[in-house]
């Protein structure tokens, strides 16, 4: 039970970072990125390759994965930043599948590493220092610290003038354009920052899992991240973290329920996804702002006549 709880909290921390990164792109900036899992995949794979093939220290490799995912965001956004959001969504979906096919068809070093075989025995950070039983606790602390740092970063970005520009973009290009803002460059930077955070989450995930394969990065995983943002409330960083807890608990607990309920695991898998899909659609219809709505802020308070 306690192991399961530690596992669940670690996964929630990692996916919390992922949900925050999508929130910067969608919740704050209004970019409908349906290929978000590609950033997670690139962060994870680049970190793995840097450690296994090039022998980089794990910390540096994770930073490399983070930067690579950010760069992917910038490269993807450079030609597409002028598209309407519906076309943007289709573009990102297609790009993510191309990235997945690349890793599905590419082997690293010998023919049985990478590709559809995946990469196993990925080294874990500080594995020698923390002995067997203590290691999950260490990784939970590591992930949680990363999550808190990312949360602080996301809140800070949102509070800067750049963050306010992103929020203005969400409501349409006209006003920022009229004020002489560089809308395309602002979008490209949002993709870069959001992508980098997702890359960090991916690097944390592969070193936690010690195994990576393209099958972890199907479009359905992108949907899970979206479910967290929608249920929690797009635009609210606290909200998406609540959403992460809800969705990841529903998703992961089927492992735990396997022993408790007399249900076949092959029934439980699809059933939990149907439950999540119904939850997302219900929230969209009945709670448009999510469970924890974004707080409306007035940046320059309006003075009412007759008052102070």
């Amino acid at each position, binding site marked *: 039970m306690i192991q399961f709880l530690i596992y669940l909290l670690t996964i929630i921390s990692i996916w919390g970072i992922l949900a925050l990164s999508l929130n910067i792109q969608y919740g704050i900036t209004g970019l409908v990125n349906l290929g978000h899992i590609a950033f997670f995949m690139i962060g994870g794979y680049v970190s793995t390759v840097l450690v296994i093939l090039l022998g980089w220290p794990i910390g540096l490799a994770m930073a490399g994965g983070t930067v690579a995912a950010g760069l992917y965001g910038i490269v993807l956004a450079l030609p597409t930043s002028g598209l309407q959001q519906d*076309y943007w969504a*289709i573009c990102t979906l297609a790009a993510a*599948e191309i990235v997945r096919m690349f890793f599905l068809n590419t082997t690293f070093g010998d023919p049985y590493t990478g590709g559809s075989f995946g990469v196993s025995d990925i080294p874990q950070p500080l594995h020698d220092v923390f002995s067997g039983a203590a290691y999950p606790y260490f990784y939970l602390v590591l992930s949680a610290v990363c999550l808190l740092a990312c949360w602080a970063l996301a809140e800070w970005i949102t509070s800067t003038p750049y963050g306010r520009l992103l929020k203005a973009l969400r409501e349409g290009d006209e006003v920022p354009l009229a004020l002489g803002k560089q809308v395309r460059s602002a979008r490209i930077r949002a993709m870069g920052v959001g992508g980098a955070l997702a890359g960090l989450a991916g690097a944390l995930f592969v070193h936690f899992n010690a195994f990576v394969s393209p099958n972890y990065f199907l479009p359905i995983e992108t949907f899970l991240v979206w479910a967290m943002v929608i249920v929690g409330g797009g635009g609210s960083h606290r909200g998406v973290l609540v959403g992460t807890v809800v969705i990841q608990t529903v998703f992961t607990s089927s492992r735990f329920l396997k022993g408790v309920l007399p249900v076949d695991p092959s029934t439980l898998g699809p059933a939990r996804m149907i439950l999540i899909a119904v939850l997302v659609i219900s929230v969209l219809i009945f709670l448009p702002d999510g469970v924890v709505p974004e707080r409306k802020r007035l940046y320059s308070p309006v003075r009412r006549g007759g008052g102070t």
Partner: protein
Amino acid sequence: MLQIVFDSLTRAAELSLMAVGLTMVYSLLRFPNFAHVESATIGAYAALFFSTTLGLAFLPAAVLAILLTAVLGVVFDKLVFGHLRDRSDIILMIASFALGIGIRQVFLLFWGPRPHFFSVGWGSALSIGGAHITPVQIGVIVTAVVCMLLFHLLLNRTRMGIAMRASADNSVLAEASGIRTERIVTAVWLLGSGMAGVAGVLLALDTQIQPNMGVAVIIPVFGAAIMGRIGNPYGAMAGALIFGFAENFGLGINWAPLLQTVGLTSADFAFIPAGYKEAVPFAVLIVVLIWRPQGLFGRVTR
């Protein structure tokens, strides 16, 4: 070469049936319905259910399945999209993404991930000029052509079709001229989902039935609709042809002469690796979106 043409035509026939419905819904309700391709999956599984589980003959089972798919299109509209009419296209898009995932998981739940097959026993492949074409492939192409012709007649010769085109063009103006838009919306869902259901049955005959069969073609279907300009069913048909051929030709062509001229390779043979087969339409779509987002046949309207 002829083989590639046969395969491409079959593919284009299946894609066009889905792309036409998608483009109609897209232009009428102004959002890309990511759940549209799931109607094909529904059609295929419904036909499987009626023929295998209930023991009907193939043709009545297929007709029943297509009718059911058409009605379910309206049901999903009433359950999900109808409640979101006044919201932004982004919300509708996300709702359709969620709906698509949910539908796919229902099939996974009841039929499992293993593929199923129809065995109609329509005889063996014919040989034409050294290329093989199966009776199923001929059936696929003929059915699609007949559906497209009927759809063309409906659009141009009936009041319903003309009202449909008017609403797709400008729904506010259409409503002001006395067209009841909600009825048109229902008709478009019936038609669009029904045609996707036909595509699903054809896909099932041609390949196999599995939960991912719809989502596997989502990119070429969207690509065909966008390439032909959203709201233009004839453009979507042309787009489906282009994507059908691009997929098969992209793999069947020796790119070496082209690459040699550019100076990229000195090898005599350069084929796109088979593992990247599915990446071809994705790449074509991204290029189209960046190069001509208004579609190949559209006019620039800015």
